[in-house]
């Protein structure tokens, strides 16, 4: 049996779009929160991604960081002094994040939402700081340790923007135009501050991309081919990879149309049931999320159970998707972070305060909600998510430049405005923008990859001109 040649197509563009959308969404979450609750359309947000991406170099390639290089033994090794420095910075970073939530009182547990003895709270915070420090130091110079370090450090640095700059301007009743310009100045300071330290050369992470997987070695940047076939008797999928010039099939899944219809029907029924069950509850898992989870579980269970079969000789339609474990990992990371955020917003006192402030700040203040703490939380989240997006972006592109984050600023703004300036809308909007970018490049002939950002922007422009309140609909 000869294997038919399969070309990449729309489905591949869509899968790229989901990866791009995931990164845009990670960045857009912070931007949307700051825009919504902090009332700042933060033009410096893109440069937070850059800051995060470069901060990770301190752990990942310490020898190449100017100034820090004296504490390094070679490009990747660090001396005892360097390790101590990294530990102290991570330790201070964690405590700094807590400190932003309300000073010493926050360190004593003031933000917990439950009454706890101050000693317990301080102990917990210090323990967490030590754990993060130890993780960073023992993990150096691995990519994950670098990621953790960058997220903690930037998460502690970004709220300073609010407390040192924006709060002061807000206290003077600065107009939106003024805050826009202020954020542009802050963007300038951050971007060129990074360049002052790191210079103009393009950098990259050094990541060990092979991990042990199912008894063998798996290179996470190495593309796998997912070939989809639609034929008369059903639908099938085969996963292949290139090894030594030959394509080798790894796994095959095949379904008859009856099986497909059955899975879809079961999924639909379960989704409706789950929606009915969870709708109108204020819990973490609401109706729509429950329905989506039901569909995902059904498809995975059904798909695995009914998998056996073979690839058809001829197909009506065949298309190939190139995806690497890294890209899948980015999508899963983004989903996991969104899940965490969702939990924070729905199930914690802090999250409820955030939602209340977003709905009506004056009312929230009257009801005794600490809006300053809410504001700082927003900026901390912006820093955490933004630096995560920046590091992932630097890894995905395999190079870091000073404009890394600024280039993503317009897509992020597009996603946020598309979603009507709220967190959940921004996530949806970001995926729309990510898909539009990749599918646009694929579908419009003669459009080179340089036009990704203009395409994202055109989506924004159309939405602004047709439905300025965003696709989700405003209040």
């Amino acid at each position: 049996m000869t294997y038919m040649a399969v070309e990449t197509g729309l489905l591949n563009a869509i899968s790229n779009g989901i990866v791009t959308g995931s990164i845009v969404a990670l960045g857009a979450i912070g931007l949307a929160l700051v825009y919504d609750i902090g009332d700042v359309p933060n033009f410096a947000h893109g440069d937070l991604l850059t800051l995060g991406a470069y901060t990770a170099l301190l752990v990942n390639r310490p020898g190449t960081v100017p100034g820090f290089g004296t504490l390094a033994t070679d490009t990747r090794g660090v001396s005892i002094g360097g390790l101590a420095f990294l530990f102290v910075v991570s330790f201070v970073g964690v405590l700094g994040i807590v400190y932003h939530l309300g000073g010493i009182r926050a360190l004593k547990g003031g933000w917990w939402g439950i009454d706890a003895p101050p000693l317990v709270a301080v102990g917990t915070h210090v323990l967490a700081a030590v754990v993060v420090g130890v993780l960073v130091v023992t993990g150096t110079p691995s990519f994950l340790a670098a990621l953790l370090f960058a997220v903690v450090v930037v998460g502690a640095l970004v709220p300073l923007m609010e407390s040192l700059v924006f709060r002061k301007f807000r206290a003077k009743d600065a107009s939106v135009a003024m805050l826009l310009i202020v954020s542009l100045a802050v963007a300038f300071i951050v971007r060129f501050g990074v360049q002052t330290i790191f210079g103009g050369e393009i950098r990259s992470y050094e990541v060990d991309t092979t991990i042990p997987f199912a008894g063998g070695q798996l290179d996470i940047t190495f593309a796998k081919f997912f070939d989809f076939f639609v034929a008369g008797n059903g639908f099938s999928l085969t996963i292949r990879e290139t090894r030594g010039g030959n394509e080798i099939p790894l796994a095959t899944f095949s379904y008859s149309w009856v099986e497909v219809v059955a899975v879809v029907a079961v999924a639909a029924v379960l989704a409706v049931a789950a929606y009915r069950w969870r709708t109108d509850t204020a819990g973490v898992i609401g109706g729509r999320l429950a329905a989506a989870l039901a569909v995902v579980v059904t498809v995975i269970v059904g798909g695995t159970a009914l998998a056996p079969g073979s690839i058809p000789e001829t197909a009506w339609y065949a298309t190939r998707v190139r995806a690497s474990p890294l890209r899948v990992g980015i999508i899963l990371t983004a989903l996991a972070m969104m899940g965490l955020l969702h939990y924070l917003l729905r199930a914690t006192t802090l999250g409820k305060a955030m939602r209340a402030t977003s709905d009506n700040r004056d009312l929230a203040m009257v009801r005794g909600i600490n809006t300053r703490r809410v504001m700082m939380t927003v900026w901390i989240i912006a820093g955490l998510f933004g630096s995560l997006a920046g590091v992932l972006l630097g890894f995905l592109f395999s190079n870091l430049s000073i404009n890394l984050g600024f280039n993503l600023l317009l897509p992020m703004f597009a996603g946020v405005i598309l979603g009507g300036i709220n967190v959940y809308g921004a996530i949806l909007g970001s995926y729309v923008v990510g898909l539009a970018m990749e599918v646009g490049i694929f579908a419009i002939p003669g459009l080179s990859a340089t036009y990704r950002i203009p395409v994202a922007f055109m989506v924004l422009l159309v939405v602004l001109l047709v439905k300025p309140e965003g696709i989700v609909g405003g209040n």
Partner: protein
Amino acid sequence: MAVSDVVVSFALLVAIYGILSLGLNVKFGHTGLLDFGHVGFFLIGAYTSALFVLPPDDPADFTNYVIGLGDVPLVGTWVFGIIVATILTGVIGGLVALPTIRLREDYLAITLLGISVIFQRVVQSESWLANGPDALRGYSPPFQGLFPIDPGTVVGAVAFALVVFVVWAVATAALSVQRENDSRLPLDRIYAVTTFGLGTRATGVLGSRFAVAGVAGLIAAVISAGLLLAASLVLVVGVLVSVYGWIVVLVAIGQHYAGLERRELALGVGFGTGLLVALLPLPLTDRLSVSIIGTLALLGALVYAYYHAITSYEWVADVKLAVIGLGAVWFVGIWYVLLPILGPLGSGDVSGVLGTLFRNAVWFLQFGSSAGIGYSIAVIGDVTVQLDYSRFQLALFLLSLGALYAILEAAVQSPFGRVLRAIRNDEAVVKSLGKDPFVYKVQSMVIGSALGGFAGGLWAMYSQGLTFRTGAPETTFIALLIVFVGGVGNNKGVLLGAVLYWAFQQATTQLAGFFPPALRVNVLAFRLVVVGVLFLIVLYYMPDGLLGREEYSSGVGES
């Protein structure tokens, strides 16, 4: 390069960014439209005018662009190219405004930023349009072929006379303002001489002081052209014009700081000297860590001392800006006069000292090039002088800047300008009075964008090579900074802002020369950090800028 040449290239940049920022001031300062994509029009203007003067492209020579009209008579000239660029950017500004101008201001800012990014990406990726990602080169600025000029020919004399005209007219206009202030100097007499007698008598006939200045400049130009053609007296004319310039500059400084008491003057001089001392570690040590840490520590000490002084002593707080201004003037003075002669002074070379002083004093001419006219002066020795191209270009740029400034001032004081400011202040009022704000906003975008395009044309001329980086968003940021430093909605303030920004840039560029080439990028990035911090300070402490919002007469209730 003599110090005066540095000043000339500084003034060229001031003219370009002055026009660019005047355009942004029309949009933001006068009408309240926050255009974060102003640089897009600068980019289009630059590329359009360059394409008009470039010869046709030649793929064999790896050039590829859509048109190259340089060989077409009349069309392929800078004048035509810049006119087309100005009109085109105005039209594009209007087209961009039509759908977007109704958006609320944060959306408008994002949208216009996005549009400028699209312009930049199109220039970058469309290789048929303008060399794609590669630089667009191969053209020369106007009349460069005439230089170095031959003063014996009519063309040379006319070129020389044009520069004399601009300098003389500007200096005379400034002097006419100065003589109205109370002064112990015989400014009236100087004014009578430099206006060839017109200044005291003909003001009534000619109307305004600007007309007098123009006519005086014209007379000076004709006289100098005659002197050149008759006797090649380049150096004599150069000395006369330079001395006149010095008088005006020194009187301006003297009058500006005339109100300061002695201790306040001393404080300003002390501040300027302190700045100089703080920078001394850079040239004095070769050890980079010592010089960087030393300079930063001394600068920090200076800033702290200043901050301490303005917060502790009331009399210092009253003159806090004047102290910085005077310190800067003092610093520039030392840099211009004293630093260049330190070398010959150290080796006891008296004629060298005098020669350097003379060369820097006669800023109107360039010295020491291979081409030019040789003179032999007592004590100083042989000198070769010429009027170089950059001074001629500066005359052209200043002429454009002056003309555009005059037109803009007339426009903002007209009823049209009043409507724009009313829109900025309260749109609903304008609507209720039966004016459609939409129409006026679009017109404001057209004018502002056209000015941006014009500035782009001058930039193409100045830089003699364009890349898509010309459209980098940083330029918009700098234009905004210039508008804010001088005073939002204040055209005079915009010019002041441009001068201050480029003075800072020039000073820091010179400092970067003390660092090894590998570190230049870092140093230049650091100065942008400083610019950003200074911008925040201006926004916070002086949101109306140095000159504040200009109060234009309402035109009502005055008689």
